[in-house]
């Protein structure tokens, strides 16, 4: 548990962790804090912040922006985490196969990975969501589908590095099976840099979701931050609060996750973190 201790001593990592906990608490308690649906048109349109019992103001239809921000935390975190996990599943699988088996398999898989990295990810995401029409599932799968290449490359690199490590060769010489070598030796040693990148993928996934929602390609039944900013964009003159607050929410959440992820990275694998941006 040295890692935990080291993390506790990591100032920016802890700052991120605390912020993240706050966002999580807001997300979990949103139905308690704002029992009325964030879609309920309870106030007058364009209520400025503080008036009419709405601390963050009201939107075009008189809905409470604060309720939207709180409920939006659930959506953003859900989509962020779920799509990062989707990306991880794809990326680790491809990277592991590529890195462990090498040769032609590796060549083909890496070409595919490169292709996915070459096509502008956001435009691909727009195309995918628009093609299969926006819903929670399609958005998660889409973000997963455009976010996996870095994870695949990292996993591959880790597998390549570890496969050549002498303890893996020793395990081979000791007669251990391929499955045990991969699951028992390589994966546990590769997992910490992968987890770090997955945590950072959550942040980019949240940004991607917000950008999609902003462009009107979000799930119309979900009050997400990107959707709120998109809805507030045209009325920025009348109601700056409609776009400012959800934007700050994204900023804080993404910042928290980045800080947390980097702290994690510094603690778990100083070797990788020095190379990363």
């Amino acid at each position, binding site marked *: 548990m040295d890692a935990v201790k080291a993390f506790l001593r990591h100032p920016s990592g802890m700052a991120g962790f605390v912020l993240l906990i706050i966002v999580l608490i807001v997300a979990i308690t949103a139905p308690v804090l704002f029992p009325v649906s964030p879609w309920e048109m309870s106030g007058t349109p364009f209520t400025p912040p503080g008036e009419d019992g709405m601390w963050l103001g009201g939107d075009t239809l008189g809905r409470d922006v604060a309720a939207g921000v709180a409920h939006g935390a659930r959506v953003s975190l859900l989509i962020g985490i779920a799509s990062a996990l989707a990306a991880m599943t794809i990326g680790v699988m491809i990277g592991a196969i590529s890195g462990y088996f090498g040769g032609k398999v590796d060549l083909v898989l890496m070409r595919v990975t490169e292709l996915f990295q070459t096509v502008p990810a956001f435009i691909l995401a727009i195309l995918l969501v*628009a093609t299969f029409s926006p819903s929670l599932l399609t958005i998660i799968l889409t973000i997963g589908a455009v976010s996996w290449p870095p994870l695949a490359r990292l996993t591959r690199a880790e597998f390549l590095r570890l496969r050549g490590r002498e303890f893996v060769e020793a395990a081979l010489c000791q007669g251990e099976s391929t499955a045990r070598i991969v699951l028992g030796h390589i994966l546990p040693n590769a997992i910490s840099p992968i987890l770090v990148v997955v945590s950072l993928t959550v942040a980019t996934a949240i940004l991607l979701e917000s950008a999609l929602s902003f462009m009107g390609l979000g799930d119309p039944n979900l009050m997400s931050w990107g959707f709120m900013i998109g809805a507030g964009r045209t*009325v920025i*003159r009348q109601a700056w609060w409609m776009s400012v607050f959800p934007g700050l929410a994204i900023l804080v959440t993404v910042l928290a996750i980045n800080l947390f992820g980097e702290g994690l990275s510094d603690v778990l694998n100083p070797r990788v973190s020095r190379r990363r941006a």
Partner: protein
Amino acid sequence: MNRREFTAAMLAASAAIPLGITRAAGQPKGGTLNTIIQPEPPILVTAFNQQQPTLTLGGKIYESLLKYGADLKPLPGMAQSWEVSPDGLTYTFKLFPGITFHDGKPMTSEDVVFSCMKVLTETHPRARQNFARVASAEAPDPLTVVFKLKQPFAPFLGCFDCTSAPIVPKHIYEGTEFRKNPMNDKAIGTGPFKLKEWVRGSHVHLVRHDGYYRKDQPYLDEIIYRIIPDSASRALALENGTVQLVQWSDVEFFDVQRFKSQKNLAYTTKGYEYFAPHQWLEMNNRVAPMNDKRFRQAVMHLIDRDAMNKRVYFGNAKVATGPISSKTKFYDPKVKRYDFSVEKAITLLDEMGLKPGANGKRAEIKYLVPPYGEVYQRAGEFFRQSFSKAGIDLVLVGTDMAGWADKVGNWDYEMTQNLLYQLGDPALGVARTYISSNIKKGILFSNTQGYSNPEVDRLFEEAAVALDEAKRQELYSKVQQILVEEVPVAWTLELEYPIIYDKAFKEIVTTGIGSHETFGSVYKS
């Protein structure tokens, strides 16, 4: 009224209109009008595309035989006079002399016949139906056009506005594949303005057509249509004077209030009489529970249409009472009224046996959000909240334009919102939504909800061919009563799009087609 008297009356009427050709000089010439076109039209030839922006822009370039006033009565366009035979089968139009196309070639009756019978019947879905009623069209001399109908059609004289029957040059299109003609880029018409430059994604620049047949017109030197996809930016452009005119949904409804009070700007909701945009919540009548009249009536009770007008449309609408707009001929206000009442709705739902389930929900219905901008999104959100009060769960389904057109056209939807134009006459713009013969799979803006009532079919058909106004009114009143009782769709609002313009510009709105008009008479003081 015999034929001569009829013509004379028409001529007199036209002379009384300020826009008539008799109105001579006095207006200052010159000046530039900056306005907005949104979204960017794919093409400027109105014969080939009838989207609203195409018509707004193309209306300056292409003219037709007639115009329509705010009362939807015909006025001279390129035709200076017209007469209708007493049997309602023969229509004879006399053209103004000296009309030329933008390329300098003269426009004659041959061009009119070619345009109506060859081009529009191929490329213009609405005109195709109108001219399908024509048995023969002839050009006895260069200034005379004669249409002979197969059977009487009361609103035939309403088919010649510049959006329904634009005249294109025969010498350019004859014998070519119309849609692929390279001259489409040049947009050669007879209107007071011609195309100078079109920078895609940026602006369309129109300049005066010096050979225009109406004396001194146009007064303006040029009109610039800017393409500004972002509505906040459009509002700002109007506010800081970058543009001097906005129309349709160029500025969002919530911005309108602000501009109403801006001193240098004039605000009007006139100029949409011909279109009378009519909006409703469309329900697929084939699918339960929407196949039950009581459910549809409950829906009418559930929607607080005043609140919807206030919150979503910011007061830029009127509550609709039935299928025909209060701005359209033959509107009858004496129909059943559905007040906003959740209780009445719940009673109706209980009555039909749609009881709340274990989770407190009576039904879950998919609502297809039309992909035409934010207001539609907001309206969907409004419906969802309204329905939730009676335990009906509306699930919004986002889609793109293709998906929406495909799903609605192929009846693969449960609920959506729709907006149709009334086109000046119930026979042209209303009947299409309700008659059984227009249940056509794959075709948008038909009777997509699948409502069918033989009585309604009969009433609409009789009203279309009847020539007597009173008789028509009687038939339409009856049809309105039946439809309002049966609620094939839940009419919500008659939208009142604004036209907002700099007061320095005069004669912006002169007819019932408002911003689609030629603007030949617009001048800057």
